[in-house]
């Protein structure tokens, strides 16, 4: 017994090594990118791309993100409400469930390929901001649906029963009790969805971006510039030396990491401390 106890410590230490590797990789990537911080000057952020700045890319990325969230948010939340509150458990729901999982696992390049064939060509939107919104929304959708489902399931059942007992209809209950109680979780899931698509390159590669535009897009039917797309084209197609694009990489990294960490932190906070348990 003593022998196996001391072996145990050895085993557990060995088991910890991979975890340490993961964390080391994360901190290494962060530190490598942060070495590029010297190349960024604040005026770079507000200078037009025509003068070597990043302004249009940053605003373009924001346009893409907000638009995609504007599409995937409502659709995802409605879908999740239907699935948790209205749907009868049966074959159709199982199929929908599988479809959501499959959509979540779809490679972004395929979403981009489909976006090109369907949104750009079939619907005639062309290479445009609108095509980018719809394509990215398709990637966000499963994340929003799953997150919202989880948030709704955490709302205590007696909240809903109380509302129903007071004579509220099903929809009134959902609207004024379930959704408000689940709101923090819903917002978190949208944030996590935005983190997923903020740095996405493959999906917008042929649906929505161009290398340089003259100023910001004036309508949703014009192409945009985006950080990820620019970084990709500059390294892969134009073969610019990596240190020249360090600034773009760093800003993209900080953008995505801040979205993701706020989302993750909020999720942990609300899982642990649900307001109604106080």
């Amino acid at each position: 017994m003593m022998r196996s106890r001391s072996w145990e410590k050895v085993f557990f230490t060995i088991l910890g090594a991979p975890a340490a590797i993961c964390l080391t990789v994360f901190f290494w990537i962060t530190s490598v990118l942060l070495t590029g911080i010297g190349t960024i000057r604040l005026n770079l952020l507000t200078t037009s791309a025509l003068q070597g700045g990043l302004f249009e890319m940053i605003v373009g990325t924001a346009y893409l993100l907000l638009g995609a969230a504007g599409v995937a948010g409502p659709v995802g939340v409605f879908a999740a409400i239907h699935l948790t509150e209205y749907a009868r458990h049966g074959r159709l729901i199982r199929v929908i469930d599988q479809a959501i999982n499959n959509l979540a696992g779809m490679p972004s390049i395929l979403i981009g390929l489909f976006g090109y064939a369907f949104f750009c060509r079939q619907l005639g939107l062309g290479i445009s901001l609108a095509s980018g919104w719809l394509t990215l929304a398709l990637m966000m959708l499963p994340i929003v649906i799953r997150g919202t489902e989880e948030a709704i399931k955490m709302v205590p059942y007696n909240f809903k029963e109380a509302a129903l007992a007071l004579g509220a209809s099903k929809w009134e209950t959902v609207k004024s009790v379930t959704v408000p109680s689940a709101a923090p979780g819903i917002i978190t899931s949208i944030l996590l969805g935005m983190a997923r698509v903020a740095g996405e390159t493959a999906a917008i590669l042929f649906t929505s971006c161009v290398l340089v535009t003259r100023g910001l897009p004036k309508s949703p039917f014009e192409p945009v510039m985006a950080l990820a797309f620019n970084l990709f084209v500059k390294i892969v197609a134009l073969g610019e030396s990596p240190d020249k694009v360090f600034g773009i990489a760093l800003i993209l990294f900080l953008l995505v990491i801040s979205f993701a960490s706020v989302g993750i932190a909020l999720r942990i906070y609300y899982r642990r401390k649900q307001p109604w348990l106080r």
Partner: protein
Amino acid sequence: MSHNKCASPNFLKSFDKPVEKLMFLCALSSIVFLFLMLLFITREGMQALFTFGADFIIGPVWETNSNLYGALPLIYGSLMVVAVALAVAVPIGVATAMFVEEVLPFSIRDLVKSLIELLASIPSIIYGFIGVLFLAPQIASLFGLSSGTVALTASLVLAIMTIPTIVSVSGETIAAVPKEYKEAALALGATKWQTLKNVVVPTAKSGILASVMLGFGRAIGETVAVLMVAGNVAVIPTPPWNILSPVYTLTAAIAMQMGEAAVGTLEYSALFGLGLILFIITLVVNSLADIIAKKGIKGEKGL
């Protein structure tokens, strides 16, 4: 559950409300779009499939200049890169999941899990950037190659990108092993390690397998990071297991060539054909993962 329907007497009446129809449509959207994806990718890929027939999949030559599109080198490239990546990522990922769920004290568990999740949220373009800038030169000097953009580099980058998926999915199933099982084993005098090895892992087996499948699906669909470091040469390496030669993957071919391929040409169609192959692989792998994971849960309930 059906009883929450009964709780609302208004249920039947309210079903015709437009909002509820709208919600139903939204719920259907994921099926509809998955179906449309299959439809449109197939439609655009038809021309190449008809022109080459089975040779589209088993043809060994992928050459844009001579308009020959056989996807075998690309399928091989994808599978090879992913196989090596999983060989690295699965042991590390599963061990990390075990460590995080079973060994780490509760207070820092969330922190470590969040950091691993952050690792997953780093965009693939950033991984590719780091791979080109730091990993590829290291690999080149380590093996004395003229260029470090080879299959091995791509596999290592992919492994790092796949680990978070494996950790989170297998971690979930490890955490879901009923406490009673572990307590029973410990009460019988098993050590913590014996409990982990003989009770926890066997019970979570199907979830761990599902996490590997999901990792496979994630890895084979990865595009940007892979194409930046894989070298992109559409030839099966000689010998076939030579991981120090450049490869071209399905995803890389689509991303690299789509920009130049004019609509309606054979090349354009062939790229959608690649998309179809990838779509089918991902659909099969993800569905299998789903079935395995669900089976595991059912099996536990039966106990």
